[in-house]
């Protein structure tokens, strides 16, 4: 992996080990949606990174879609009306 590069770029005080990077990558792997049980340890770093990018992009898209949906739904609600406060209390 590119651990050599990060060791060179980091300062002498904080040496980043291979193990730390591998741990991070595996944590990232656990976050990703998909077959969690069958995630073999041999998933390469580049694959995990690629899936991470895809996942982040899909989360961005979801936020965008939800904003769309909300703007259409909330367009009829006046911000100070009692209905808005009901909605607020529903989600709190």
């Amino acid at each position: 992996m590119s651990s050599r590069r990060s060791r060179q770029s980091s300062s002498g005080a904080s040496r980043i080990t291979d193990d730390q990077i591998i741990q991070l990558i595996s944590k990232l792997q656990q976050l990703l949606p998909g077959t969690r049980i069958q995630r073999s340890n041999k998933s390469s770093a580049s694959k995990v990174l690629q899936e991470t990018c895809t996942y982040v992009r899909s989360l961005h898209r979801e936020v965008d879609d939800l904003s769309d949906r909300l703007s259409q739904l909330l367009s009829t609600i006046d911000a100070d009306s009692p209905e808005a406060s009901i909605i607020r209390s529903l989600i709190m």
Partner: protein
Amino acid sequence: MHTSSKLTKEFTKKWVKGLQICCSSKKNMDVLERKKKIKLCADIALASAKNATTSWSIALISEAKKDGENKILVDNLLGPKSPFKQQKTIPLMSTCHKRVRSKKILKRSCSVGQRMKKMGPPKSNLATYIAKRLVKKRTQVLQRLVPGGESMDEFSLIKEALDYILSLRVQVDVMRSLANAAEVSNQTDPNVFD
């Protein structure tokens, strides 16, 4: 996970507050403008709920403040004692150069791979070389996706990406609950909103 429920509460409070600020200023926004405001409030609320503990949240707030219109909203939302105020704006390079560069790297790595094949190196070297190039390329893509990623080294980038994904999930969950709730209340009382 009690940390995510705390984040959920913080985010929801700030987002609703932001929405109130936005929506009270202009009553007759068109759908697209309203959508942008909702999204902006959500992003700022998410970043400020982190309380300046992560780089991506700081970068997101700095980016939002660059727009003069948004700056007032951001300042209102963050409050007077926000830890974000002391941060310098992180200059974000234009991302199109990176895209071009990563395509060039891919082309170069393909051609270099072919060249090396002709020279006949041991297979393991070639594999690790290509693997490293791939990791570098993917890392660059991730840098573009995570706010403020351009100025991070690989290690911090992965840490920030971890946190960013968790926070994005919270954001999506809260927004989805609100959308579902609004839909339900729209269906039950369609006459009330006249």
